[in-house]
């Protein structure tokens, strides 16, 4: 059965690009080493042969110009997908994304649309050190006018990338590199996953664990571990950080009364803080204990394995966070 077919996240993203480029001749991709080589992670593999060099562009190493060109092409009716080889390079494109992509429609009084997708690989956890390992989605959540998406599964990755390309708004689409090789069921052919709809990845009544991207897998592992102690965690994958499906989160918190938010980003000013704030705003009365954020430490990412492990949140940190909101163990502040 095709429903049972399992492919990796990079294959799923590749399928999404193939299908969207087939479907809409205004979709094109631009980035570094994406055409001849098919991308560092093979997400754009095979596109050059099928769609040609005008729509599959190996660009000079000029990230800002690639992003700006994407914005310009979007303004005149194309649907560009710009690939940042490593998501840390967003620092090089911030002006084009924040000051241009996110604002152009508003500044024009609604006279233009900017259907632009910026994809990037978040590469923490594999020893790429401080300039290739950042998880920077919070920067974009803070900027008005952008959509921010971070998928955790191949199924969501394909369906959300298709939605991102079809959306008339600028989308920052961040992919966790360690998830590229993870397999999961992905239907053949066309389907979309809606923007702004969270997914309950695991049901439970004792605690709500909210996360996205690789954090979802940490949360699921922690949940499985605690299930052996008869603690049932509900794991919510927000999938879309902006717009945030706050209703699904608060509904769960109203059921469990406890909230843990997991992110691989540094804690200060993180999206985890935003989730806690939104829940406090909308469901404070439902909270039976102080929410806990499980985040990376506020350091640049170190290189050596024990150091990187010490900075990134681990499954045991999520377990500790869950125990803390349940008041089960010596309450020890988890990482972050």
């Amino acid at each position, binding site marked *: 059965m095709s429903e049972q077919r399992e492919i990796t996240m990079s294959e799923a993203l590749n399928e999404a690009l193939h299908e969207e480029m087939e479907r809409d001749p205004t979709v094109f991709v631009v980035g570094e080493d994406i055409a001849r080589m098919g991308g560092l992670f093979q997400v754009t593999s095979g596109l050059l042969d099928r769609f040609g060099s005008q729509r599959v562009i190996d660009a000079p190493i000029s990230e800002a110009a690639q*992003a700006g060109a994407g914005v*310009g*092409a979007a303004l005149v*009716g194309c649907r560009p997908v710009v690939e940042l080889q490593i998501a840390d390079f967003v620092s090089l494109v911030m002006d*084009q994304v924040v000051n241009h992509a996110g604002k152009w*429609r508003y500044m024009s*009084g609604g006279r233009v649309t900017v259907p632009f997708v910026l994809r990037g690989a978040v590469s923490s956890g594999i020893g790429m050190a401080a300039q290739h390992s950042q998880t920077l989605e919070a920067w974009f959540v803070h900027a*008005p006018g952008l959509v921010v998406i971070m998928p955790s599964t191949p199924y969501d990755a394909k369906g959300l990338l298709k939605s991102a390309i079809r959306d008339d708004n600028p989308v920052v689409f961040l992919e966790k590199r360690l998830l590229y090789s993870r397999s999961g069921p992905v239907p053949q052919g066309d389907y979309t996953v*809606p*923007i702004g709809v969270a997914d309950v990845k695991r049901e439970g009544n004792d605690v709500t664990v909210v996360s996205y991207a690789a954090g979802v897998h940490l949360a699921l592992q922690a949940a499985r571990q605690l299930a052996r102690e008869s603690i049932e965690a509900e794991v919510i994958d927000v999938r879309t950080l902006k717009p945030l499906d706050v209703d699904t989160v608060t509904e769960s918190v109203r059921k469990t009364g406890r909230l843990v938010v997991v992110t691989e980003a540094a804690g200060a000013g993180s999206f985890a803080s935003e989730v806690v704030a939104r829940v406090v705003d909308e469901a404070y009365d439902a909270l039976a204990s102080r929410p806990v954020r499980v985040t990376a430490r506020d350091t640049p990412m170190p290189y050596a394995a024990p150091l990187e492990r010490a900075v990134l949140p681990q499954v045991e940190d999520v377990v500790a966070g869950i125990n803390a909101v349940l008041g089960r163990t010596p309450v020890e502040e988890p990482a972050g």
Partner: protein
Amino acid sequence: MATAETATHDLEVLENLLLRMWQIRAFEIRAMELFEEKLIRGSVHPYVGMEAIAVGVCAALGPDDYITSTHRGHGHCVAKGLDLKLMMAEIIGREDGYCRGRGGSMHITAMEKGMLGADAIVAGSSAIAVGAAHGLGLQGRDAVVVCFFGDGAANQGILHEACNLAAVLSAPVVFVCENNAWAISTPAAASTRIEDIADRAAGYGFPGVVADGNDVLGMRDAAKEAVERARAGAGPTLIEAKSYRVTPHSAATKTDLRPPEELDAWRARDPILRFSRYLCEEAGVEPARLEVIEQQAKRDVDEAVEFALASPRPEAGAALEDVYAPADWLSPGRLA
């Protein structure tokens, strides 16, 4: 220098160039007055003394061609045929303005007129122009994009990236550097060690041309050649228009460090007076006719101000509109 003032042209076309230049001049002078009267907020950056550049370049463009503009963008808008009434309403912050009062002086956008938008980040629109040009080509539209920028922008990183990317893509872009000799208080000579910014084009592998920015016909000739080259698929050109802004950096900038004798020298080269003289001496236009054109422009601006002041102020609630383009996920009353 590109030669000019030799070719014969249809008189009506020439008179229209003069009218446009006068419209810009009158518009800017009125805008500065309106700023002093506190009817304009923030600031305005007048284009006085540089009218020949925008008018000459836009005379080489067709209605399906596009431009990007700068913080000093009113002249580009007028030259591209935007409606003075909607421009003035925008600058005064009224509902009938091009951007419904969201953009103001520095962000006028009018896609239907080929105005991709004014961009108040110096050099910010350079890559946007490249992407727009590529995107138009992908859609089979035979259009050229002109990117206006200043001598200050020439030292921004994104401009370098954009020029190189345009060259690599053979994008139909014309880069027009308006060298008006000064940043706010820093002379161009303190910002670069080269005399002609046009020289930089050699580094990108496309032609660089120095033109007299106070000679409207010379600007038109230089632009025509560059536009034809771009449209033929031969790639970009950099035109450096040497000119001068004879008014302060902005209506809000009261300090002007430029030597008075330098200002006087440039006032003597006023592009409007110069072209008027040409029309009289070479094209047989009666001085009385020139007066009619000047008065026409002033009336047009008066009517624009009248229209703008009669236009309603935006309702406060409109501030929350158009952050995003319509989308399934966008529910009423929610920003994201």
